[in-house]
């Protein structure tokens, strides 16, 4: 049995007249330490898959097993990095991470240890210089860094990232991708990340899960990315294997799963 097991998940939403089938028969097995990205067109239900794994949403049929235990409610073992960072604006950068640390390690760590752990995680994402700033006073990229630190600080079994860099400008996004690879090299987390950026998917992933268009979206193809790590985006730009993977994903998205609304 694999580490994280998504098996035959259907998600059906009630709508005004009848039901909307968002996902049908979504199955995926993830090994410990794997970095998986899920890519697909808008509205294909990528985020729905993530929400089911997070426990924020119940599958209509099928289910999710994490270390052979069924997932049916949210919890810090499946920390989420939300697309729009969702830091609490009345708490400082430090407090935003500390609230998670206190909640998860309130009983197992002393106060001093929890402080050190909070600062340690903010150092991982290079935000130790802004501990006392409020989220309103830092840039979008920095907020997302803090969001990642908050998720990492929970020491999740699976780190879930819902288009974490989707709202950022290209330069900041590239910089954050570097940070994620750097952290992944150290911590070797199991990561499930949603993206709509082909380069991001190829650069970061061990496997890319390509989803078909909704309604009744499902896993279309899974692409194994065998590029050696550490990966360097400058070197990869001219790498034939990299460009091959990139082309594979593009082919899937634009030939086999043309956007229904794209002319």
């Amino acid at each position: 049995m694999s580490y994280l097991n998504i098996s035959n998940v259907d998600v059906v939403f009630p709508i005004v007249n009848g039901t909307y089938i968002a996902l049908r028969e979504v199955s995926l097995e993830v090994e410990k330490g794997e970095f998986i990205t899920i890519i697909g067109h808008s509205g294909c239900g990528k985020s729905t898959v993530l929400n089911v794994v997070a426990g924020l949403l119940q599958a209509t049929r099928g289910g999710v097993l994490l270390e052979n235990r069924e997932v049916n409610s949210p919890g810090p073992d499946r920390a989420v990095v939300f697309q729009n960072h969702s830091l609490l604006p009345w708490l400082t950068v430090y407090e935003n991470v500390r609230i998670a640390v206190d909640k998860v390690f309130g009983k197992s760590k002393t106060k001093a240890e929890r402080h050190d752990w909070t600062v340690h995680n903010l150092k991982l994402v290079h935000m130790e210089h802004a501990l006392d700033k409020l989220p309103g006073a830092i840039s979008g990229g920095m907020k997302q860094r803090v969001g990642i630190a908050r998720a990492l600080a929970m020491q999740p079994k699976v780190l879930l990232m819902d288009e974490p860099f989707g709202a950022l400008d290209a330069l900041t996004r590239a910089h954050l991708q570097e940070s994620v690879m750097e952290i992944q090299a150290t911590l070797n987390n199991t990561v499930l990340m949603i993206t709509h950026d082909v380069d991001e998917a190829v650069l970061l992933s061990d496997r890319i899960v390509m989803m078909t268009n909704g309604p009744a979206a499902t896993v279309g193809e899974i692409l194994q990315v065998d590029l050696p790590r550490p990966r360097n985006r400058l070197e990869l730009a001219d790498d034939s294997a990299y460009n091959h993977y990139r082309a594979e994903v593009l082919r899937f998205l634009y030939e086999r799963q043309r956007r229904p609304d794209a002319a």
Partner: protein
Amino acid sequence: MSKVIALSTATRMEPQRLETPAPMIVPNEQVDVTAANRERQPPVPKMETAIAPVSRTRTRVAAVLRAILLPALTFLVVLAIWSFVNAKITSDIPTPAEAWTRAVEVLGNPFYDAGPNDMGIGWQVLYSLGRVMAGFALAVVVGIPVGFLMGASRAVHQACYPLVQILRPVSPLAWLPIGLLIFQAKDPSAIFVIFITSIWPVIVNTAAGVQAIPQDYLNVARVLQLGKLEVTRRILIPATLPHILTGMRLSLSVAWMVIVAAEMLTGGIGIGFYVWDEWNNLNVASIIVAIGVIGLVGILLESVMNLAQRHFDYNRR
């Protein structure tokens, strides 16, 4: 509830970024810092500061002058109309000069006490403020929890909203007879009127604040497995606080407007009855002075609430 979240995330618009490759540049963190600063600061006309500092001081002086001159001009227009009314329509309205003389008299000795029927304007204002604060405090104590319930529970919202909508526009003075009947005394009746008219902004704004809490904050709470009490203390209250304070600010200014009218009817010591009393004495100059005082106290209350609001607004702190 969770299904609603998922629907909205599933149908979220995504920018079409699939074709553009990520740039092959590794930027440094400085990009972020300047971006943050750009967002928060208005663009500074750099050319001007560097080349012509003199003209910049001059524009600042001009701005200050305008800030003083333009309102002064408005006051002058009002004084002109006032003098015109005095000269052409009714000489019962005193001239601005007469009003000024009266103001110096009244405000020169605001805290004299010559028995319950003859007290300085300072006392009158303090008595009124006392009633306002009592009614306002009651409105806040009752209104915030009610607003919270209405914002948090659909059922409570459906149950209470029509009542709130019906009672909210009712003129404050319509409540006075009810108050007098219930309490058989003028002070509690006045406080009751303040309470019943100033509670609505608190309720409506608190409820709106709770409803406006982004689902993301609640999702964070769910992932962290915060308990009900923790969610209230760590998420709901801080997230709603700016709305609550807006409600309180509106409520307080309503309360201060209402007290004058209520006191004119109930009597007793207070700025409202002072106005009524001076009217009966045909002492119009005193009324004009009182109008000025009421306005100034109103500004004072408003700025205290503004200060509180700024202090708790995490976006501007």
